[in-house]
């Protein structure tokens, strides 16, 4: 089946129609953040300070790209392991975050929070940073510039390939996929 084309941020209805295991091509705006940026955002939340960008309705991509070579917008830019962000994710979902893109398992707390806040978790293919970089059309640093590749960047993407892993009903494709092909 051909992947479904979607724009992000997306309408609530489009998001709730997404199903675990569905392939999508995303176009629009996404924000990057990985370990260090999540730690700082969570410190801001604890202190009651504003987050460095308005997170409502947005998607975060867990990525720490390589530096862009000459004439490039971005270097290699594939997903990193999402589980390291589990600790910080529910509080961001509470503040309106609608999607996360990464790779690998999420814990039960994150899954529950995804359902409660009607959000979605997608995976990009780990280790295809060269391929993914072609779908990124612009990159602008938004916050925590001192973190280098771990800073928060705003990316404009066109047909960014991903697969729905946890949908807004809580179905988890990692569990389903495994049982289909087990044995």
């Amino acid at each position: 089946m051909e992947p479904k084309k979607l724009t992000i941020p997306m309408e609530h209805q489009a998001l709730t129609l997404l199903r675990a295991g569905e392939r999508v091509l995303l176009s629009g705006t996404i924000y990057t953040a990985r370990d260090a940026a999540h730690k700082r955002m969570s410190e801001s939340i604890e202190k009651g300070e504003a987050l460095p960008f308005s997170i409502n309705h947005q998607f975060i991509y867990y990525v720490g790209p390589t530096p862009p070579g000459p004439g490039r917008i971005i270097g290699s830019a594939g997903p990193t392991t999402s589980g390291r962000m589990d600790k910080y994710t529910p509080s961001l979902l509470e503040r309106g975050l609608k999607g996360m893109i990464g790779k690998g398992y999420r814990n039960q707390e994150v899954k529950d929070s995804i359902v409660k806040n009607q959000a979605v978790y997608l995976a990009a293919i780990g280790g295809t940073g060269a391929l993914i970089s072609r779908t990124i059309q612009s990159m602008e640093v938004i916050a925590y510039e001192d973190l280098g590749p771990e800073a928060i960047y705003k990316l404009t993407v066109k047909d960014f390939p991903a697969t729905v892993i946890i949908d807004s009903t809580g179905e988890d494709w990692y569990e389903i996929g495994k049982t289909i092909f087990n044995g």
Partner: protein
Amino acid sequence: MRAIPYQFVVNEVAKMCQEANFELGNDVIDAFQDALKNETSPIGQNILQDLIENANIASSERIPMCQDTGGSVFIVELGQECHIEGGSIYDAINEGVIKGYEEGYLRHSIVDNPLTRTKSKTYNSPAIIHIEMRPGSECTIHMSAKGGGSENMSALKMMKPSDGIEGVKAFILDTVKNAGPNACPPLVVGIGIGGNFERCAYLAKKSLFRPIGHRSQHQELAELELELMAKMNLLGIGPQGMGGSTTALDVKIEIEPCHIAALPVAINLNCHASRHKEINL
């Protein structure tokens, strides 16, 4: 005594670091092609095709195949009658890593202090360097750009001798199951059995330097490698953990004698971005 100039080592190491990240080995690409013929899951097939395309883009555009360009790990086979002129081999390798990573726009992924998480002041170094002394005057450097995602899902267990081979197999399969999508399957699984606590970990790492398809010289271990691979591919995990029959591209086992009370087992997982280069200086 044969002398190799320090700067020559620096330059060759710098080149290896870049080549490892831009040029995926033919053994890995062939393994993707073979897997594609057998993979039954449509998502799995798509992923394998993307891995092949990604490797082609990396090679033609000289951009890293993965944004995690690795911590660099070296195994040096150094002849006793060979020495590095003008500095230590450790310094030469580290200088080569800094040069290769910085000039090649590879990522600086090393923190100085694992607890405070402050970034290392030298670009993506220090490297992890193992030196094995050999007779003669040759010097061969093996380099691996090792990803953090798969390294994090690796495991070591001091098992009981009574656990036996069945216990060892169960531990290995559990480790792969537990890693699931996190280690970026399809995997290359490196296993070290015996030695002691640190030695089995080294054996597991060292086994990953063997090309895909290269079997253990010990008949019974070669059979065990194939048996474990077949079992892993029945787990259903598949490419990227999204379901399928290609969970492992290969399994490698290295074995060494150990203490009568011990059965040390280490499992070092490598992702599909199995990046290795070697050079004979």
